[in-house]
């Protein structure tokens, strides 16, 4: 390789951070917070370049960039990082986590610790997990029971876990990029999809999918991560400070997200959206079980799923 391929550690203070959304969103605010706090604790040590609005690419591109040295830090959903650590799909298993607190306890405990370790082995240093909020079912017509999904065309994330879940309810999956989703649903390529409440309001999807059913089937969880190459350039003391600041920021992010979720649901309802409670919870969970069965080996065995369920 040419000589200039060697990473120049003298420049390590410059820190390129990728954010998928704009300045006013929790995804960017969390990095402004981390930047400001680190400036207080370690003045002049880092120069943050926070690149917003997904200008550096999607989540997978950013994660690749972290491994290849072009990006030093970002947030990521665990779904994307499961390309390296398949066990992370445990956190995406449907109807496994009762609520935000349940998820928080699991990722703060031994399971979360093990996942962080697996991520570190793959070049992603994770100070803490974050919670993007629950994914809910969105539809053109009211859908509260799973049998109502039979034969409906559903926009799904292109991932076996999601496809399996909705196929279990008899829906026909179709892959549509998120930017085309509004159009596709307005014109009828799809009848339903699932998304967090914040994104539902953010993309104004209530205009085309007026019914939100609070299934909360998947808690969309993620991480704050730093690239290993960046991490290795820090002293032991600096690492401790960055970890502490980031962990505090993770809680800040979760709070922002919760506020955003509540505001989003209100906004949707004020604009003609209807929020419904799911019925026949047993039937929903029945469908989810097929996903658990299919993924139990990937996530580390049925006992891991049991441990999560038993976590108070």
């Amino acid at each position, binding site marked *: 390789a040419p000589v200039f391929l060697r990473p120049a550690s003298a420049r390590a203070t410059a820190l390129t951070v990728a954010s998928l959304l704009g300045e006013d969103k929790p995804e960017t605010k969390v990095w402004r917070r981390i930047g400001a706090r680190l400036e207080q604790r370690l003045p002049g040590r880092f120069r943050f370049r926070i690149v917003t609005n997904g200008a550096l690419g999607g989540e997978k591109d950013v994660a690749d960039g972290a491994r290849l040295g072009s990006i030093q830090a970002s947030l990521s959903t665990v779904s994307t990082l499961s390309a*390296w650590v398949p066990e992370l799909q445990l956190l995406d298993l449907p109807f496994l986590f009762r609520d935000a607190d349940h998820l928080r306890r699991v990722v703060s405990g031994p399971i979360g610790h093990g996942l962080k370790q697996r991520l570190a082995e793959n070049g992603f240093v994770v100070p803490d997990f974050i919670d993007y909020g629950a994914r809910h079912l969105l539809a053109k017509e009211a859908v509260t029971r799973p049998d109502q999904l039979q034969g409906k065309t559903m926009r799904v994330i292109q991932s076996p876990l999601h496809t399996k879940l909705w*196929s279990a309810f008899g829906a026909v999956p179709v892959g549509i990029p998120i930017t*085309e989703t509004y159009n*596709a649903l307005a014109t009828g390529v799809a009848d339903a999809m699932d998304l967090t409440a914040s994104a539902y309001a953010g993309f104004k999807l209530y205009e085309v999918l007026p019914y939100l059913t609070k299934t909360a089937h998947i808690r969309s969880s993620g991480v704050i991560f730093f690239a290993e190459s960046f991490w290795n350039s820090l002293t032991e003391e600096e690492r401790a400070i960055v970890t502490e600041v980031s962990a505090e920021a993770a809680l800040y992010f979760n709070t922002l997200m919760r506020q955003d979720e509540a505001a989003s649901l209100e906004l949707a309802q004020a604009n003609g959206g209807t929020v419904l409670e799911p019925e026949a919870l047993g039937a929903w969970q029945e469908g989810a079980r097929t996903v658990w069965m299919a993924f139990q080996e990937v996530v580390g065995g049925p006992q891991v799923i049991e441990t999560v369920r038993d976590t108070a």
Partner: protein
Amino acid sequence: MAAAIEAALSTFAATVLAALLALVLGSVTLRYLFSTGLVGAEVAGLWLFLLLVALGMPLAASGPLSMRLDILVKLLPQRLRLLAGVAADSVTVLAALTLLLGGIDAAGLMGSTSVVLGLPDWLRPAALAAGGALLMALLLLRRVAEGCGLPVLLSVLVGAGVYALPVDYAASWPPSLVALMLAGIGLLFGAPLAHCLLAAAALAVPFGSALLLPALVTNAASGLSRFLLLAIPFFLLAGGLLTISGAAERLVRLAASLVGHRRAGLAQTTLLTSLLFSGASGSSVANAAFGAGTFYPQLVRNGYPPAQAGAVIAATSVLDNVIPPSIAFLLLAAATDLSVGALLLGGAYAGLVMAACLAVAIHLVHRRTDPMPRVTGQERRSALLAALPALGLVLVVVGGIRIGLVTPTEAAALAAGYALLLAVAHRSGRASLWSTFRQSAIEAAAIGLLIGAAAPMTFLLAVDDVAGMVTGFVTSLGGQAVVVLLLCNLVLLTTGLVLDIGAAILLLAPILLPAAVAAGIDPIAFGVILVVNLMIGGVTPPVGILIFVVSGLTGVEAPKLFRAVTPYLAALLVALLLLCLAALVL
């Protein structure tokens, strides 16, 4: 040897394109006929497209698809021209080495597995590495076959030498600026645009660029891995198949029966046919090629001076990328996350305004050409009937997207499938079908490579926050919409002079759009204006891709065409002015 490799590569690329078409059509069929989906069809399609680009890039390195700015080089005396050739080949060597070595490094570092396909992700940079190796090999073989063994050896030495240069410059300039300047220098030597972009991004590393080579290659790979972009090969294919199916000629007959009897009837027919063709094809280059093949002989036979005939064809083919479907809008949507549907609708209005302005210009320019005889209502009806299958294609594409049966990418695949049926029904021979697949595959690879090559540059521009600087500058001027629009138009028209449309969209849209939005301009309206601006660049010197295509196919020299196209250029600028006024008022 070179020819044998080229033949093998183009066959392989055509096969990949056929597989891609089968995949997307299969996925739509499954959904509607069997109420089930094909898991991972999208991702598989993206991988196939990447493979297509890797296979096709060595083939697209020569000819009009290479997008070389060679007008300046041609002015040089013979000996200097040879030196410029060596320099241009060195740029290609640099780009090939970047793909090869960066791709190999990236393949070793990725470590992830595609969750959907279950295949290791290292295959993607590895494909580009293989493409780089093939690019280099074909360059050497071609030059040796041309008797330029010594110069190409020099190019390799220069390229490899620059590549391995053990330097680390203090970074006082933003790396993105350095990269842009380096790309500009390569372009002046007459190197292919995509190679200039890749080589420049690689050479920016010692100037402090954050994008080390492995990251550069994965960045290029992900730049061209966007589902929307899959529509590009399909629209190219649809345009090619439409031509060999004879359906295009029926469109001509219909247009002639409608406007042929007017003043400059044949030229007006060219315009109307181009408009109809635009509704089914997404590529202005395909439109120009079609017009040059279909209309040029007829126009000349009917007393139009050759340069005039070529100018009408080049100017009317601008419409293709404005009227839906449009590759330019697909690129814009991919670069900025604007909605394709909304952009296409805006493009439809803009295209009609432009067509009206062109019709007036043709009317004024061709005072002395005779109209064609007026046809009877009976003939008109039969022309319409004969053209129905071709018009059906418009329905499939525009209707499919608007009614919402399919996504834009699927609509493109349906259009290609439909045109394939037309071609088969017309008994187009297997050979001509296959050669259309080859041609479309190579064109798609050329566009794909350009999209991929622009990605590292956009990354560098984003890290340096050039968009923020532009918005800041514009705001400091007061930020009135009219001022911003005027400035953007100037920037875009200037860029359109030298830069290819696709690359310009990818590089400029993310920079200018935030400034326009900050000034209160509707993003969709601005997107349409941006594309119209850059499309006009297709007929302006020194780099006017539409003029080059027409020149290449008709043999009329490009400078003569540039002169003859002036009145139509004026008409298009009037259309642009009208669109800008509409954006400000509405």
